[in-house]
């Protein structure tokens, strides 16, 4: 999509702002709940992501980072696309867990439409940054690392 392509040109201060206060919206698309819990776990005292300004928000309109978990179920697909369209740009997507990265153990399921990155690239045809965090479930440290890497990519992408 041409408009999406032009929108992804992020100015330095936009990328800087997002890297300083990434607000996370969490989206489960056919999960076993575990990545979701580990994500919440990141906010609790042991890991405390608020140190880096990361906050969980309830409305996609407030989000900068979409945390997508699960193997992208057929019923969730249109909802996922709708949510992506509601997020103000620029934003990044983090696909959590083995399911989000490559469908994981549900690879052969009849109800999956593929990993998150494939959906974003081939079905939505957008070049939003997608970071895959493998693991079943990924440890909170890995989740933090995934977000950090995504934000770095966003800063590098500025032109």
């Amino acid at each position, binding site marked *: 999509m041409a408009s999406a392509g032009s*929108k992804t040109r992020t100015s330095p201060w936009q990328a800087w702002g997002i890297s300083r*206060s990434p607000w996370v919206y969490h989206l489960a698309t056919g999960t076993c709940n575990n990545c979701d819990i580990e994500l919440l776990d990141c906010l609790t005292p042991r890991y405390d992501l*608020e*140190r880096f300004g990361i906050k969980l928000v309830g409305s996609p309109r407030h989000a900068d980072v979409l945390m997508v978990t699960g193997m992208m179920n057929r019923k969730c697909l249109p909802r996922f696309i709708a949510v992506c369209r509601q997020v*103000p740009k620029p934003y990044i997507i983090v696909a959590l867990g083995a399911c989000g990265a490559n469908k994981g153990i549900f690879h052969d399921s009849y109800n999956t439409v593929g990993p998150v990155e494939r959906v974003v690239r081939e079905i939505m045809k957008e070049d939003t940054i997608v970071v895959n965090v493998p693991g079943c479930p990924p440890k909170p440290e890995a989740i933090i690392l995934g977000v950090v890497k995504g934000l770095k990519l966003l800063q590098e992408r500025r032109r």
Partner: protein
Amino acid sequence: MRYVLELVIYPGFIFATAVGLLTSWFERKVSALVQWRKGPPVLQPLYDLVKLAGKETLVSERANSAGFLLAPFLGFAGAIVASLILWNANLGRSFLGDSIVLLYLLVLPALAVILGGLASGNPIAILGATRELKLVLAYEVPLVLAVIVAILKADSLLLHRLGNTITIGSLSGVLAFFVALLAVQVKLGFAPFDIAEAETELIAGPYIEYSGPPLAVFKLTHAMLLFILPLFLVTLFLGGIDFRGLGWLWGILKYLGVVLAIVLIKNTNPRLRIDQAIRFFWRYGLGLALLALVLAIIGDQVGLRWL
């Protein structure tokens, strides 16, 4: 020119924003400490604002876009003028009836939230706006009664004179302060009265459709309210901030103490139901405020300062 400078830099927009953002950080830090966490860095509220300013503004198809986009600025304007009046009063510059004007100005942010929520055309936002409206109806009367107690004690409508009277030194003053503190808690949208935003029920309530700069304005207004409302309590009930000598240090301590009380109430209470909140204010809030008023009048007539 002086007025413009006053409005924009000190003690208007920039000053109030800076103090408000610092207070906002203080609030988040204390919350984090209560919850065994480390908490965000000092400039975190500012980062949030910069980030939001750089995001896209989305307006939903069902929204009334003019109302939707103008509403944040209504509350913002109210907050700026309120901070101006309040700070000037503490500096000794006051005009007749400014306490009444202040009360009106402090309703504007709530009105802005209601307008914005209703204009956004989202059923959840509308529900949040109606809840906010109910809350305004619930807490305004007790708050005004509590302010009247302070006015009776100071025997003046001037905020400056109010600021020089330590209302809390009397029994009625303590009761009125307590009622006003709870009303401030609602105005700030903190637990147990965060019913309008109610993250786990209404997602973000009236703010649900806002994104980017308009949301930043709402956040900014909230940060400024976090500066204005505790200062309002300090001025009305705790004797204000005295700028002679080391008085300002004592004033800051009073201010931080009030903020701390607000944050601790926020972090040790679950959210009330809307009917419980209204019942609470109309029964206990109004009762306490009326009692304080009666005590204050009696004390005034009989001449007992401690009543």
